[in-house]
């Protein structure tokens, strides 16, 4: 079949494109997808926190596990509903549950969501019925599926041909996971504060601050990897870059630290939650920009192995 040695390309690439036209199509995942990723992240992280709280406080005297289970269960219903809303043919959403395709993060992600919903319902429902052992048993799969639900969305973006998303698969996943944990801890801190559990709220606020630190570190690795791959422009200037800087970084990371120092912890938690959603929206919009830049996509398909 392959009688001849492959002929090398005529000459090195000097930045030629086809009339400057895009070579890829943007995914055009809309604000619903960004909201979905954020809500799923908060719900998944809350379920992790419920698990941790059960080992630490078996009597649930702070009510943290109980509230976290309720929040996770609510999220596990709302998030898929938002996701189905983004489908262009929503009445066929159930076709996602028609097959299992291990190569597709969208496919196994749907199964993770399904498992997360079922286990979250079980943990929440069993606790409501007063079956504490059963609730704790359901907590294990619920926490594991929660971890998956809070982090697989970055994998979904990176496992594409989009230059911006594909260039930095590990840091993007770390960034999304840290943002999910920051959001989950912030949401629980808000609930604990409103229930008068101030000490628990403070610890959750500290955890969310640590998660913001991890998110910042991941963001730095992310922009470094994107710069090295020559795909960082959409996050440098233009509307997605502005959204990223003002929304995700200023409002989502810097403002909460200032607000906390000023003694406004509830406002700080709210800012973290909004910033977490804006981060996802900025990454989606920047990805669409990236797909439209032929120099980025053609350069990426030349430089990057795998």
């Amino acid at each position, binding site marked *: 079949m392959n009688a001849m040695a492959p*002929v090398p390309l005529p000459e090195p690439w000097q930045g030629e494109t086809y*009339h400057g036209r895009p070579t890829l199509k943007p995914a055009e995942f809309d604000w619903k997808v960004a909201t979905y990723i954020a809500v799923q992240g908060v719900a998944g992280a809350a379920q992790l926190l419920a698990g941790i709280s059960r080992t630490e406080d078996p009597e649930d005297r702070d009510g943290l596990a109980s509230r976290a289970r309720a929040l996770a269960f609510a999220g596990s219903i709302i998030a898929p509903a938002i996701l189905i809303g983004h489908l262009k043919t929503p009445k066929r959403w159930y076709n996602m549950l028609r097959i299992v395709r291990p190569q597709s993060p969208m496919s196994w992600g749907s199964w993770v969501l399904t498992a997360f919903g079922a286990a979250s319902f079980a943990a929440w429902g069993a606790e409501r019925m007063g079956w504490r052992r059963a609730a704790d048993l359901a907590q294990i799969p619920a926490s594991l599926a929660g971890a998956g639900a809070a982090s697989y969305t970055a994998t979904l973006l*990176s*496992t594409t041909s989009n230059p911006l998303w594909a260039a930095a698969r590990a840091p993007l996943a770390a960034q999304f996971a840290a943002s999910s944990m920051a959001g989950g801890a912030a949401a629980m801190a808000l609930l604990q504060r409103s229930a008068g559990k101030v000490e628990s709220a403070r610890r959750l606020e*500290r955890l969310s601050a640590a998660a913001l630190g*991890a998110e910042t570190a991941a963001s730095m690795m992310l922009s470094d990897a994107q710069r090295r791959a020559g795909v960082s422009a959409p996050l440098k200037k233009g509307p997605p870059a502005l959204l990223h800087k003002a929304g995700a970084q200023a409002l989502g990371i810097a403002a909460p630290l200032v607000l906390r120092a000023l003694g406004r912890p509830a406002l700080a938690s709210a800012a973290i939650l909004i910033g977490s959603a804006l981060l996802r929206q900025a990454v989606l919009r920047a990805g669409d920009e990236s*797909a439209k830049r032929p120099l980025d996509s*053609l350069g990426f398909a030349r430089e990057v192995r795998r």
Partner: protein
Amino acid sequence: MDGGLINRGAQEAERTAGARIEPGRSYGFFTDTTLCIGCKACEVACKEWNGLPADGDMRLSGHSYDNTGALGAETWRHVGFVERLDDRPGEMKPFQSNWIMFSDVCKHCDPAPCLEACPTGALFRTEFDTVVVQQDICNGCAYCVPACPFGVVEVSKADGKAHKCTLCHDRMKGGMEPACAKACPTDSIQFGALEDLIPRAHQRVEHLHEMGQDRAYLYGAPGTPGATHGIKKLNAFFLLTERPEVHGLPSEPVRPAPRAQPSLLAGLGTLAGLAAAALVFGLGSRR
């Protein structure tokens, strides 16, 4: 028994393309840019056979004779036009003028990134080793769109489902070669079984080299540029004389699926680290 073929006897494709169509074999296109005259018969034949609407607003793009622009939900063949204005006519290579035409199409990749991404199984590999969207399954999640390394598949605004070239699956079922290949007046688009097309394409490259067109090479046949990084072959492959980028093709397309594992591990690892911190420092009140 007959794999669903309508016609078990003589097939039209045997007369028009010299290819017999049988389920279980791999079929594709060999598109030779050195033969293309830019007549767009393939574009029109595709639209006609597949009942696809016109491209729209009738404006001129300014991109040579290309007013189609790109492949998309309603455009499954697209003829690109490149004019080499900087070269002098005397420096033209034989068998390719400075006006280079290229009929682009879905590559029917093997493995196909769009198919691997599709969560519903709407995208599937057919009995002819081609990649087709089942319209009654697709739910318009659009995940195949960013998955494709060539920007081919698109979700239509009209019906909310993904569309792309089917390699005329319906015609093949009836023993007919795809509409574009049949319409092509210069045989720039050749349809056939890959076991016939690939050696024929290599011979064509050799022949062109002998005649002085030493830039000719295959893109997408096994072991050539275009079949890289986990993509074994493009069932619709090309003969080019310019770098792939000149036609908007990536020089080394990458299969995205292997990125999932390192990404997932990084995400779960980050969560595990933060969960460990929460365990150590505690989440509840101290008493």
